[in-house]
């Protein structure tokens, strides 16, 4: 599941970070930074609206919906054989060999958590503070078998959420703890960039 | 017997001083004679040179006899197994008054005059004395950790004073 693009949108809909990875750099060359800003605020609005149009019945039964996301081991981490050779790089202030190791509850209850098209799949991770992490992946879900599809869809979704929570962890370390970063502003941290790139590379 | 205790800073500036008076009545001289009392700071400062000499001495000088513990000293006991190389023991005397000293790693000098008792030959209890110094040292370190205390300024904290007096009561006769 190659990640092509990563966007971070702040709570007021402003784009604070965007990166393309690998082939996507070439593919999205024509988009200007202004276009990205528009994409970000559009997504922000769509997410808000989707929350409104989620069927009422669904909302009433919200307690019945399981928002638990299982832990998928090793998403975005260096593969085990490479870690044997070279010493594992430390995960910032996170102890151990992975950022987290337990299943968790999704904060995103809008109904829009994943968007699948013929060209790409988009994953949305939203935090309690209103931040949105959006990843666009090149992988397209197979359409042959309905059962298979829904299973794959679930797995992809889980991997997406695991991946994005890890990006959130990196963000909390390298962006929030950078004393020179001012809140809600575009992220220019090189450390953050490097860590994100590493993780995206590991997901491929 | 009474004691006069002082902490002297690196530049020979006084940081703390206290006089301990024993509460036991059986000893006739619980307090320094008033004329001596005023001399106490001078006597202490006079012995500081000896402390500084001892500080850099590499080998024990037991022959002189004015060091009551031969393995005492600071750098001298680098290879000694005992951890209490800060305690210098009895370093000086002045008309029957004994003076003991202790030096911290940062060069703060703890010195004390042991007052005369009726029995002038009464030896200083080295063990208790050492423990007293060590515990005061610990208190001093805690004071240093207080963000409102500036190193080498006089210690004015009443709690420090109280604790030191408690220690004196416990370990010094």
């Amino acid at each position, binding site marked *: 599941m190659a990640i092509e693009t990563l966007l971070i949108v702040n*709570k007021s809909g402003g784009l604070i970070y965007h990166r393309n990875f690998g082939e996507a750099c070439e593919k999205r060359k024509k988009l200007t930074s202004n276009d990205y800003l528009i994409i970000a605020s559009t997504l922000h609005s769509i*997410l*808000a609206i*989707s*929350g*409104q149009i*989620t069927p009422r019945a669904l*909302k009433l039964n919200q307690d019945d919906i399981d*928002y638990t996301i299982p832990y998928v081991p090793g998403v975005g981490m260096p593969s085990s054989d490479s870690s044997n050779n070279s010493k594992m790089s430390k995960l910032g*202030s*996170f*102890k*151990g060999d992975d*950022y*987290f190791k337990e299943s*968790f*509850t999704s*904060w*995103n*209850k*809008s109904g*829009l958590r994943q968007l699948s098209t013929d060209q790409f799949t988009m994953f949305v991770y*939203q*935090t*309690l*503070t*209103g*931040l949105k992490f959006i990843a666009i992946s090149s992988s397209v879900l197979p359409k042959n078998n309905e059962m298979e599809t829904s299973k794959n869809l679930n797995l992809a979704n889980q991997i997406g959420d695991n991946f994005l*929570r890890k990006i*959130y*962890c990196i*963000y*909390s*370390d390298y962006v*929030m*703890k950078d004393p020179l970063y001012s*809140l809600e502003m575009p992220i220019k941290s090189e450390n953050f960039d490097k860590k994100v790139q590493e993780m995206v590379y590991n997901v491929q | 017997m009474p004691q006069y205790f002082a902490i002297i800073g690196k530049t020979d500036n006084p940081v703390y001083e206290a006089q301990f008076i024993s509460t036991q009545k059986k000893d006739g001289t619980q307090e320094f004679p008033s004329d001596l009392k005023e001399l106490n700071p001078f006597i202490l400062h006079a012995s500081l040179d000896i402390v500084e000499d001892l500080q850099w001495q590499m080998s024990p000088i037991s022959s002189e006899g004015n060091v009551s513990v031969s393995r005492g000293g600071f750098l001298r006991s680098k290879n000694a197994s005992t951890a209490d190389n800060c305690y210098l023991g009895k370093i000086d005397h002045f008309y029957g008054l004994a003076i003991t000293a202790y030096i911290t790693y940062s060069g703060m000098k703890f010195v004390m005059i042991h007052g005369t008792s009726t029995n002038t030959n009464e030896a200083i209890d080295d063990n208790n004395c050492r423990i007293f110094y060590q515990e005061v040292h610990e208190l001093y370190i*805690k004071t240093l*950790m*207080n*963000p*409102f*205390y500036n190193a080498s300024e006089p210690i004015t*904290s009443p*709690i420090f004073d109280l604790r030191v007096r408690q220690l004196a009561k416990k370990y010094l006769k």
Partner: protein
Amino acid sequence: MSSSAGQQQIKTLKVLGEDVWKNKVEKINSELFTLTYGTIVSQLCQDYDRDFEKINDELYKMGYNIGVRIIEDFLARTALPRCTDFNTTSEVISKVAFKVFLNLTPTIANWSQSNDAFSLIISDNPLSDFVELPIDAMKSLWYSNVYCGVLKGALEMVQLDCDVSFVSDILRGDNQTELRIKLNKVLKDEIPVIED
């Protein structure tokens, strides 16, 4: 919330806090931390000419800036869902937040009648190890006021508008260190719409 379910929840939170603190957080030397904070406060005393009211404000502001940032770290680490009521919030603060960042579990006490304010009793405050307030500061300086700012900032980021302040402090000669948190309102407008 039935009380047994509440007890259960408190237990889970406690386990979570301990687990995160034990297995997921890199630690630093506590004396280094204590001394660093002490230096900041005593430097502020110098810079502000011992105007302790101002120093309190300054510490509060510093805390606020820490709070709005550290909340992200907290959420990334724990992934806790939104609290259903202020009761839960108090438990999360005490059993998870204080535990994870300071290895401390303040006691929750003195709930107000309307259940919108409570106190945290902090024993063994790591910030004030070794500290003895100067006499002139005894009456007006809240030495650990940075806590208030942190809590204010962090709670505000999860849309809880609270007043946070010290009521008493052992350093001032009181017999316990008490911090009061009062909920003003839940900032409904700012809750991300997609959560509803």
